[in-house]
């Protein structure tokens, strides 16, 4: 075998191994991005999905002691009940967008392992109504502090 041929074969082996690793990596960790309607249409229990939608106002229940979080996610046409174990992230809330990672369970709810709240980039004037709420909160806490 000439040296050149050896090199070419070596290169092909490496390229092949890399291609296989990438292929295996993609098939194992690819996560499909779906909306609640799409999930409702064809949900495979146990399969990993990324689910995007809006948290339906009034559906949010958060139980700090047991860390149980449950809510309904909607895209306007379909809704999906969601359960999660853990603190809701900072930007998460009713009427806000959220992207969840998790899987559909046979019991008919979406089990979220990760919640990513969507940050809206829109301009928000400072000193709006929020402020009054915060002030109340701080007054209470000040009284309580160590």
């Amino acid at each position, binding site marked *: 075998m000439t040296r050149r041929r050896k090199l070419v074969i*070596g290169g092909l082996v490496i390229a092949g191994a890399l291609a296989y690793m990438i292929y295996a990596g993609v098939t194992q960790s690819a996560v499909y991005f779906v909306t609640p309607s799409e999930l409702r249409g064809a949900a495979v229990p146990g399969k990993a999905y990324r689910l995007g939608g809006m948290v339906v106002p009034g559906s949010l229940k958060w139980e700090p002691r047991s860390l149980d979080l449950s809510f309904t996610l909607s895209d306007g046409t379909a809704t999906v009940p969601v359960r999660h174990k853990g603190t809701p992230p900072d930007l998460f809330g009713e009427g806000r967008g959220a992207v969840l990672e998790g899987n559909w369970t046979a019991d008919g709810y979406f089990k979220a392992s990760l919640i990513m709240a969507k940050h809206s980039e829109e301009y928000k004037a400072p000193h709006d109504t929020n402020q009054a709420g915060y002030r109340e909160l701080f007054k209470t806490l000040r009284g*309580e502090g160590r």
Partner: protein
Amino acid sequence: MTADLGYGMTLVALGLALYGGIAAGAGARSGRTALIESAQHAAIGVFVLVTSCFALLTYAFLTFDFSVRYVATNTNLGTPFYYRITAVWGALEGSIILWAWMLTLYTIILIVRHRVGARELYPWALATMLGILAFFLLVMTVAAPPFQRQMPVPADGRGLNPLLEDTGMITHPVALYLGFTGFSVPFAFAMAALITGRIGDTWLVLTRRWTIVAWYFLSLGLLIGGWWSYHVLGWGGYWAWDPVENAAFMPWLTGTAFLHSVMIQERRRMLRLWNISLVILTFGLTLFGTFLTRSGVIASVHAFTQGSIGILFLSFLALVLLTALGLVAWRWEALRSEGELDSIVSRESAFLLNNVFLVAAAFTVFFGTVFPLLSEAVRGVKVSVGAPFFNQVNVPLFLSLVFLMGVGPLIAWRRASLESLKRNFLWPVALGIVAAAAAFALGVRSLLAALTFATTVFVAVTIAVDFTRATRARLRVGESLLPAMGGLLLRHNRRYGGFVVHLGILIIALGVMGSHAWSVQTETTLHRGESAELAGYRFRFDGLTAVEESNHFKVIGAFTVSNGRVLGVLRPAKKFYPQEQAPIAYVDYRLGLREDLYLVLGDFARDGSQATIKLQVNRLVSWIWIGGLVLTLGALLAILPERHRTA
């Protein structure tokens, strides 16, 4: 007023940069030095103007000049003094101006250093630099103008993104951009070499130190970015394979490959085509990274058409790549290597493999980052691959790279004999195996951890072997120990700087492995006075307090940490910025060599009686920062001027 002045200066700078680029090219073609000198004057003019723009914008921030829209959207009256300075580059428009300013800075250094020494290449390199500058100035005038009037002038601004109110944000973008822009100099010289046909080693020798400088800053930027992510974002990690991180990591990988393959060309006249391609690729990736992070394309392929910045960057990237590839095709014959690979068991081959793995890693990162976009564009379904994909494919590649780090510097050029292999690698291999066995005996059951131990010890011993051998040689000629070691580091600073960088990488590898394998975390809700336990530590919740800062409110939790004895109080907080829709978590931590305690305040009861916390014991993470420090010191050592050419 301020906005108009700044905009005017940007326009003039754009005109000057275009003129200078054309003049330098024309001067190089015709050999008229007057034209080249005129281009130099234009470059100096651009430098002065961009510096003035930058100073003007900073001044506008310091004086709360809300008549400039960019100032009004990125600061408010409450922003503390020194975050008003960092706010200058806190968003897109300002980061482009910072970028342009650094390019002008590099252009000036290029003029000062290479005006006389590199007669043939210099004018074309200058023309290329001015061309790149003209592009960024164009972006500053049409796509992301920092100087735009805000009418009517608001009484107060919107405020800086609170996550950027951190000291890491002063240095991180600066270092990262110095790295990104730094790679434009080797690129400019590569273009000059292709245009003039002088594709010998001159351009490599001229840009060698430039490349290390760019690499140093890029590494520093990545490390500070990791540190920022760890101590500000509050998710407990330092690297998430986020597209923004990947954008900076890809040019780092190809730049690292280039740093190594250069040595093969210098020594064996091989890989000319490969080296030119790597420089083009690295520079292209710095542009691609900016396109990726700044165009909105990550959110969706359809988002980037909304602003003109994505199209501008993509067009410029296409222009750069087409021009560069055209030139490469034109010089194809001359680019063919003179040297040949003699044996698979040789230093050339180890370096070649190193390059293949680094480029493969860059490709993997690229593929994983653009995969969702490709799948959305081609199949219409959004599919993403997350951290598991990147880890699964890259960990074997990185481990192989670490292994080669031990082989490359010691194995013989051309063809290594069995005898020399035994002499060089017997001890390293033996001790590597011992390390894996020791890890197993100490209870490490993860194959990956054992492999990492074995490889890092193997590489560390090769470095020790080399250094001892070289020191002994100097002792034999009568030097005493310390001067001999110091002399080695300083005289062969490029080689030993490289070794120090390798040591840094080893330490980082151990830190990454440890944090992945052994970190633990939990989440829980505590009433006041209650404690949570994790990994032998107790965290007692003592209560909440509230504080009012200049531009936000803060709710601070107090948690007493103990492991038998009291270690201290951790005070994680939540910060409420009036302009933000939601509070921002403020992490508190206690760093240690063995483990970090890392505490995030989640939810809390409004009366302060109850708090939900996420607590983590992160193992060996500090070694990542220590390794990073070692790595940057090594790079600095390699940047020092060589006192003695290594044979």
